[in-house]
């Protein structure tokens, strides 16, 4: 299996494509483009809405293009004095959780997949069980715990509960499991200890899984609302979603302009992250020559 390092080649690229294939491909492109437009339509509405005055966003019937484009929403949002701080908090929490998940989950995933030890099956089944417990269930006890540890209103309180996730361990374990034992054994024969094997053999091979985990973790933490809302007791620890809710959602009305501008602000970094990581995210598996 490990020898199959063939690069994927689109099936009919080699030979000159006959006409029927070309028609089919044109059709395919058409469908894909239509689908893409439909998929991006709500998205476009959001970006276009963020540069409309509120009256125009809610206007009836609604329009796509802004009549009088304005940056007033962004201006009002960014002029909130602590905006930079909220952005920093969100980044710090999300990046810390990404780092924690990448390191700790891959370590545990490696042990669960490639080392025999007592309690392994119990641990893995616990992970699987926890994977399916919805967050709303454990919310109150978790907060009581964090608060009793004196961690409410601190970065640690925001980060620690999400520093490892069962999903992360599950993904890493599945991925490492599929790495051929022969590679691990070869490294061990060369005299490498478990740590060396992990660092120099396993981790490099795990790049695609790590990229997947990084994106999923970043996404979840970057958009997390309820936990930071409850844990942050003062505004110094607010993250972006909490701050956006503060500015845009009132008791009796919503400021749609601010809301959409906020959404654009929150979404853009993730799109950029995906653009940067997508190569690893998607292509890695084929290059590692496994499966």
């Amino acid at each position: 299996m490990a020898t199959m390092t063939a690069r994927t080649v689109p099936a009919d690229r080699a030979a000159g494509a006959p006409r029927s294939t070309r028609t089919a491909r044109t059709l395919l492109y058409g469908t894909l483009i239509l689908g893409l437009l439909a998929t991006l339509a709500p998205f476009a509405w959001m970006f276009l809405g963020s540069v409309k005055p509120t009256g125009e966003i809610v206007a009836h019937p609604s329009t796509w293009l802004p009549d009088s484009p304005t940056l007033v929403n962004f201006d009002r949002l960014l002029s909130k004095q602590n905006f930079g701080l909220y952005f920093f908090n969100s980044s710090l929490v999300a990046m810390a959780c990404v780092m924690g998940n990448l390191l700790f989950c891959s370590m545990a995933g490696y042990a669960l997949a490639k080392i025999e030890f007592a309690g392994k099956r119990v641990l893995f089944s616990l992970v699987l069980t926890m994977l399916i417990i919805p967050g709303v269930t454990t919310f109150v006890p978790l907060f009581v715990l964090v608060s009793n540890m004196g961690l409410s209103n601190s970065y640690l309180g925001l980060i620690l509960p999400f520093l490892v996730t069962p999903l992360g361990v599950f993904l890493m374990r599945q991925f490492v499991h599929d790495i051929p034992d022969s590679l691990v054994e070869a490294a061990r024969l060369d005299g490498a200890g478990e740590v060396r094997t992990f660092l120099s053999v396993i981790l490099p091979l795990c790049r695609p899984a790590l990229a997947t985990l990084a994106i999923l973790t970043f996404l979840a933490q970057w958009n997390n609302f309820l936990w930071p809302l409850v844990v942050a007791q003062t505004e110094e620890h607010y993250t972006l979603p909490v701050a956006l809710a503060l500015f845009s959602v009132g008791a009796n009305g919503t400021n749609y302009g601010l809301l959409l501008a906020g959404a654009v602000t929150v979404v853009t970094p993730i799109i950029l992250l995906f653009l940067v990581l997508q190569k690893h995210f998607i292509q890695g598996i084929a290059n590692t020559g496994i499966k």
Partner: protein
Amino acid sequence: MAWGFCSPFVALFATFGVWPVFSSLSMSVTDITSRDVRTPFSVNFVGLDNYSALFADPTFVRAVLNTLYFVAVGIPLTMVIALALAVALNSGIRRAKALFRVGYFAPVVTSIVAVAVVWRYLYKPDGMINSALAAIGIHGPDWLNDPHWSMPALILMAVWRHFGIPMVIFLAGLQSVPAELHEAARMDGATRWRAFRSITLPLLRPTTLIVAILLSISYLQFFEEPFVMTSGGPLDSTVSISYYAYRQFGFGNYGLASAASYVLVTAIALLSFVQFRIFRAKV
């Protein structure tokens, strides 16, 4: 040694994962309400009363049926769309692959609150979806106000929000399917469809398993769409188990709410188990 690798994970996991679950599991067999939060140990043990109370509540039964409806339609639909797109992007086209990939993935990263505003406009009786339908001669329903159409509307929105990740996972899986196998099959005279069915699909089975499990976990926890779009209405047609539990937490009925969550956990466990059976059986 192995525990050395596991210890950071185990320490954090036991503290912030397992312990709160034990607490909430114990809440589900007591009559704890928000009255008791300051004295959580002086509550009464009620056995499985919360669980029987749940199934005696017609709203909860409705929530279970709604959740099943959502899962039964949503998961296959999402998987088919994700796989079709993955195949098209992997071998169907050459140009602008990255553009399509990022474009189709974009819905995954949008925040639900902003997206809700947009989708509510799309679903208005005279909104963009119905205008599009009218163009081909179909008179669209009042999506969010019609108890028969509210769930399909939320399913469509959920599929839109979720197909990106399975698509990318399928893409990764497809790239590990060696092209030679495919070409060999084509040489032997197999049609594209046959080659896909007899070579690609079986090789994708582990990927499909992961996708199916990830989707079941998130779809059974169906919550955000009714929360931001319909508040469970009209006429309870979009109340899900998670949403029901959330409401009970809001009422301060912590025992009942926890019990509802564990009904959900059981459902997820059962479904995952079945999927393991189906997809692992032939490997």
